[in-house]
């Protein structure tokens, strides 16, 4: 089986949304209502319960080296966003029912028949990926086409991508490919290119992402958090505070009873 994942090279994304459509078709997800957001060509806006791939259209007043446009200082950046399938997944660690599991492909999967609709994974995800559908309250997100992987198929989005912006495969091979791509972009003058969330050293807060990205601007520009952390990593201090508070509360309760008894005499 091995570790599977996505490498999304944003420099070759053309914003065709084939991945969004392929994902919706394979996973039988309904449309998003054909709304125009009124602020860009992006009509999906964000990942959600019915949107498991989302293409962000970033309009920048900054030129990209080697790309000429009609307007002087302008460039498009496109990013096909998806669930990151973190090595340390916040949703998985937060799920109180065991509905979220790690599969044999090292991906993170929400079992819809177990999901309780408590919404804890929604608040826990540092990337804002998991969403609750509004009617019955269950959580949904990208499954990395778990049903296709079992048959040895490529996930629908990667299969449909015409520019190989989305590459699916074994994580180690993807890492090698991504490193080579960054080297070649640097050699061609695009010094801003870097990998986002490749491994634990690159993104310690999540232990690395199984779906990592090649970006050419700050993560914020793509609506990605610059230094995300799985909230569980900070929980130890919170539990310590609870222990301290418990000591204090017990002392206060006993003290109050003793004081009250003393005052009686």
């Amino acid at each position, binding site marked *: 089986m091995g570790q599977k994942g996505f490498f999304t090279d944003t420099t070759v994304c053309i914003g065709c949304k084939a991945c969004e459509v392929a994902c919706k078709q394979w996973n039988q997800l309904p449309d998003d209502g054909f709304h125009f957001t009124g602020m*860009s060509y992006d009509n999906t806006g964000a990942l959600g319960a019915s949107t498991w791939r989302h293409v962000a259209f*970033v309009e920048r007043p900054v030129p990209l080296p080697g790309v000429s446009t009609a307007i002087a200082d302008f460039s498009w950046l496109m990013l096909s966003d998806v669930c990151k399938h973190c090595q340390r997944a916040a949703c998985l660690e*937060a799920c109180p029912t065991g509905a979220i599991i790690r599969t044999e492909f090292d991906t993170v999967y929400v079992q819809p028949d177990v999901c309780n609709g408590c919404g*804890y994974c929604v608040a826990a995800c540092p990337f804002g990926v998991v969403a609750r559908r509004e009617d019955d309250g269950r959580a949904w997100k990208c499954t990395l086409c778990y049903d296709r992987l079992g048959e040895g198929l490529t996930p629908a989005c990667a299969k449909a991508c015409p520019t190989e912006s989305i590459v699916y495969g074994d994580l180690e091979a993807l890492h090698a490919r991504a490193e080579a791509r960054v080297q070649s972009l640097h050699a061609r003058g695009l010094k801003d290119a870097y*990998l986002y969330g490749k491994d634990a050293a690159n993104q*310690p*807060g999540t232990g690395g992402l199984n779906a990592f990205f090649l970006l050419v601007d700050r993560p914020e520009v793509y609506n990605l958090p610059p230094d995300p952390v799985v909230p569980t990593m*900070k929980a130890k201090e919170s539990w310590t505070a609870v222990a301290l508070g*418990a000591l*204090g509360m017990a002392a206060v309760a006993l003290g109050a009873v003793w004081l009250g008894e003393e005052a009686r005499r």
Partner: protein
Amino acid sequence: MSSPHEPTASLLDQLQRRADGRNVDPTLGVLTGEGAQQRVKTLERAPGIRPSLAASPASPSYHGLPVIKEPVWIAAIPTYLYVGGVAGATSVLGLAVELAGGRRLRQLARRCLWVGTAGDLVSAGLLTYDLGRPARFLNMLRVFRPTSPMSIGSWVLAGSGGLNTLALLLSHRRGVPGKVGRAAGAGAAVLGLPLSGYTAVLLTNTAVPLWQSMHRTLPLFFMASATAAAGSLLSLLPHARHEARVLRAFGLAGKVASLAAGLAVERDAERVTEVARPLREGVSGALWRTSKACAVAGLVLDLLPRRRRWARVAADVLTTVGAVSARFALFEGGKASARNPQATFQAQRRGLGAAEAIANHTLASDGRPLSFPLRVLR
């Protein structure tokens, strides 16, 4: 299963298909998957952020869209934060009275048991209401997952509620049943300690910037505030004069501690301007100011010499209002901070993301030293 969306093919259509050799089944286009019948989503934009990247190159965002998802919980959750906290603190006081109090305080211990049990049951009801179906609360006890404060909390609440009920039924009896009942009451009280504090861990163990920023202090605030609120509630219930001395000491300690912890919580949030914004502005800001004013007023009224009856009642009511509004303020404030992408971005750039949790991490994948706040490209 025949779908209602299935188009009925006319005779001509059928003949044409046969002539073409097409074997396209029109039902193949009908969505039948488990996620298929969802309502479409609505997009939300951060309030006060203009939908443009060029607007502020120093702190960019993606059209002001939120970077994390807003918590989906309803008002039952902040209500539970109050009720559950009071139930836990009351159980703890009940055990203290059993252990250290004399025979004259027996009535108070019994009342604590009643209030604790009622609080546990109401809490379970509120959580079930948020989940939507009673069976879903039982489903929370499917597994025990130590990494999930919600899993731990579900077990704590279920255990505390069950033991409290057992104690209520048995503890006044003689012989073995009485012993079992009193042991159950003690167990419920021990569980009352985490019951009043775990909710803070549950909130801070999320990606919501406001809650995450106070992960060291919020448990102390919730537990102190629960102590104050439990003391006030028990004082509002009819009680004897010698019991009032115990309740006053208990509540007073809680009020002082909750004021101090409240200031600590606010100072934690103030480390980043955008994170603390909901505590100053909007509905959550108004609620937070109300909670502080009520807490101070309740404490001052409580400390007045030669207190009249009205002053005692007013102090207890004000403390209760303060405790409830503090929980609603933090709840709504957390939602507001989740809608604001800059709250997430700026906190992480200030080193309050992974850098805060993993101190000894220094090298990036390319061998260059990692510095937090992260290096800004370009």
